[in-house]
């Protein structure tokens, strides 16, 4: 369980770092496409007898680069590139899963198995997390500007192509390691939900990034506790907590706005 907390915390820090840029670039479904594609890598890894996370990583990187390549060719319908890769990933995973002998092992990647990860996976998660976090911190302003306005970023001198390439690799690597722990079907929600919560409350970009991480950490810790004591699936519990929190924030904001309006009417 202690290991689950450590891995959960590491992922709770890096997933929203990637998630906020994905959301701001209007590519919220990218996590879905990559996580579904990662399943094809998991199946391929299990069939070939190599570590499924390595297989997931390789397929995720290929899928992410394909999304970028298609996006550049059809910039006006860039979201279509995600749908195409998502379809290809699901199709490939579906076909390959038929050849996997240990179905239970494959299924563990769908909803994750954060409490049953190996030493190798623990080290892998730690190394990747530090690398992603270091890259995110170093490329903080470049990623911000590319997400804000790609054209202006290019004119300001930002190496937009290189930044996009690095970010694509970071996303793919993050999704592939997260698919083992929180689950391929849930990693996309982990990218989007904490960011969505933070965007409701943040008063600056910096605050929104910090808020996304804080929300993800809180959801992960609470989710792990709840799942342990109530015997629930950890990945699903974490994401559901996030969705409930997001809805509550919306509700509280709406009530606060109504109160302010009522006070204004009372005062005038």
């Amino acid at each position: 369980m202690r290991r689950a907390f450590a891995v959960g915390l590491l992922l709770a820090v890096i997933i929203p770092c990637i998630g906020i840029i994905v959301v701001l670039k209007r590519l919220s479904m990218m996590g879905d496409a990559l996580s579904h594609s990662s399943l094809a890598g998991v199946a391929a890894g299990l069939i070939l007898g190599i570590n499924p996370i390595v297989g997931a990583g390789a397929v995720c990187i290929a899928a992410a680069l394909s999304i970028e390549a298609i996006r550049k060719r059809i910039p006006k319908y860039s979201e279509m590139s995600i749908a195409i890769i998502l379809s290809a990933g699901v199709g490939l995973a579906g076909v390959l899963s038929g050849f996997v002998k240990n179905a239970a092992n494959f299924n563990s990647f769908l909803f994750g198995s954060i409490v049953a990860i190996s030493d190798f996976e623990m080290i892998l998660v730690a190394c990747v997390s530090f690398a992603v976090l270091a890259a995110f911190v170093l490329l903080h302003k470049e990623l911000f500007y590319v997400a804000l306005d790609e054209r202006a970023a290019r004119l300001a001198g930002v190496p937009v192509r290189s930044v996009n390439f690095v970010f694509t690799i970071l996303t793919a690597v993050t999704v592939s390691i997260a698919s083992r722990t929180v689950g391929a079907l849930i990693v996309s929600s982990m990218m989007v939900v904490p960011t969505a919560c933070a965007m409701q409350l943040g008063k600056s970009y910096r605050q929104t990034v910090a808020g996304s991480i804080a929300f993800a950490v809180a959801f992960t810790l609470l989710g792990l506790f709840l799942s342990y004591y109530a015997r629930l699936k950890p990945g699903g519990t974490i994401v559901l907590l996030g969705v409930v929190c997001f809805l509550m924030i919306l509700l509280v904001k709406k009530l606060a706005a109504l109160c302010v309006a009522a006070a204004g009417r009372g005062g005038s």
Partner: protein
Amino acid sequence: MPGAVRPSDVLRADNLSFQYGDEPVFSQIGFSLSAGDFAGVIGSNGSGKSTLLRLLLGELSPATGGILLFGRDVRRFDAWPRVGYLAQNGLSSGANFPATAEEIVTANLFSEIGFLRFPRRAHREKAREALARVGMAACAGRMLGTLSGGQRQRVLLARVLVNEPDLLLLDEPTNGVDAETVASLFALLSRLNREKGVTILMVTHDIARAEESVSRIFCLEDGSMIELDKAQIRKELSHKHKHPAPLGPGRFAEGGGKS
């Protein structure tokens, strides 16, 4: 067409032709701007004004002809912080991007801050100064989504100005903003042009306001580009008041517009 290349040319386009697929936009147009020029480009919708700016920014490649920015071919030009560009539709990410005005302006100091480096206090102060120049000092800490259309436009102008560019390319900067903001934007641009010698090329539909501020006006229409003199513009303005209609080069031709 412009004559021989002059050392004072900030921007120069020669024999420029462009088409989208089989659809020609303009053909063999040419013009040049010297340091300190304040030029307006007018023309009806779809005449290729924004396309012209995208060519000048090197985002599109012309079918024929070439463009020089500060004497350098645009395809090899790399001193982009010398060029400030304000897009017609503001930010590509939309108006609700979760960032403050100061964060947005600071981002444009990239070349000064440096790759993989962090903005320092001096950079943030410079951003606040740029915001103050456009009358937005009080809004530095406000999120973009909480600002009005006119305030957002000022923030984007501050973002452009923070690098103290020598050339400003503005694509309908007064689109969708109130009359008061339009007046202050034009006053600010005139001041920049007069006091700092910034060369400005502005695409606009607001011919009346442009006529008061700019030193040169080009009309892009039916695939060609002509430069109008003040008399022609005044004639066009009086005609426009009587018969509001899209602009066309035919109406200027009798006034002897030069190409």
